[in-house]
């Protein structure tokens, strides 16, 4: 897992009326739905945040962030990497 995950800049985040959003990859046509927490994580995949850093910021924004959040966000980012939405490895902050 990269230390500072970076979203593929080609991927488009399309926010909807209820704070959920669709991630769309124009090269592959792949799409995935995100809930509001997923949107907040996505917006922090900028090559400057670590996963623990993202969780710290989530705790400031959302109520009830569980103790397992770091592991869950790691899994979420790994899934996005697998789907091709997060691509460029960053071992240092960008």
């Amino acid at each position, binding site marked *: 897992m990269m230390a500072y995950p970076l979203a593929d800049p080609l991927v488009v985040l399309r926010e*909807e009326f209820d704070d959920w959003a669709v991630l769309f990859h124009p090269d592959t*046509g792949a799409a995935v739905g995100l809930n509001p927490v997923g949107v907040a994580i996505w917006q922090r995949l900028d090559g400057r945040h670590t996963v623990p850093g993202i969780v710290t910021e989530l705790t400031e924004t959302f109520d009830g962030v569980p103790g397992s959040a770091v592991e869950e966000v790691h899994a979420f980012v790994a899934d996005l990497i697998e789907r091709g939405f997060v691509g460029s490895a960053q071992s240092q902050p960008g």
Partner: protein
Amino acid sequence: MPPGAAHAQPQPEAGPRLAQFYFYLTEGCNCACRHCWLAPKFDPEATRYPTLPVAAFERVIAEALPLGLGRVKLTGGEPLMHPDIGDLLAVVRREDLALTVETNGLRLTEALADAIAGCRQPFVSVSLDGAEAGYHDKVRGVPGAFDLAVAGVRHLVEAGLKPQLILSVMRDNVGQVEPVVRLAEQLGAGSVKFNLIQPTERGVALHEQGDSLTVPELIDLGRWVEGDLAGSTELALHFDYPRAFRSLARLATRGGQGSCGILGILGVLASGQYALCGIGESVPELLFGQVGQVPLAEVWYQHPVLLALRDGLPGKLGGICAECLQKSDCLGSCIAQNYYRAKDLFAPYWFCEEADQLGLFPASRRVPVAAKG
């Protein structure tokens, strides 16, 4: 083979699975609903128009089982006015098939409710177009229909079922959306579905006269039902607009609803004709041959219309459907409706087309033009 084991995971020997058969059991109906998309003939005693013979029903099932049949849907017309409905239910039970019944509830007796409950995975939907007789009976065209339908729902609940109530939303009864949910709670129903008025058969006149709701009104109503009303009840609520308009939160929890199941179903009409679905009543080119005269396997595996659908869905869908992110799940929402309007199996769904023309199709669910393959 013991009952229950034969169809646990039915799979055809080769080719696509025919998962479900829709039986349009009666050509007549004991209601005269002003919005009906099939427009059966009014026949309150079920004596004037054809009904599917029990022998034909059994033959279809016998030929469908090797193709993977797991569930049958009994609809109409009005399935419970079939003179041999008890025998038909006995066949369903004997073959251990899962059962869906779509009914207006007028003839839903305690005995029939028990017979339905005795089948595997019974699911029954009862039409109720208002929480008061004045609304419902006006839509149905039959005085007393409301009281009989409510009594039918009670029989289903007493038989241990959780029926679904279906309200077809139109201008006259849009104020009944929440009252019907409250009535459903009181009756012990399991869910409420809100259907759009389709511009097919009698529904065409409702659209032309402005008695159906407009697309913008329906979008607003759907969002209110899914976003607000659903939060006020334990019942499952389903607003039947296309998936592109459904919130991601709803899709995440109820993903399977709101798409055309056409790749896994086939219909048979009261006349004994195989058909794409009930649309065969109105569109002769979607009839596929007579039960007993043409083998079902030949229809299912070789009919040009079915082959064209398997080859063309979703890739050949046209118009706004071609640009929709959810076309693979939605499959054009309703192929029968699309064909009825445009004589094209791959025509776009009317609701999405109108929304697109009004600038209301959700941009987030649309494939950017540059990305289209």
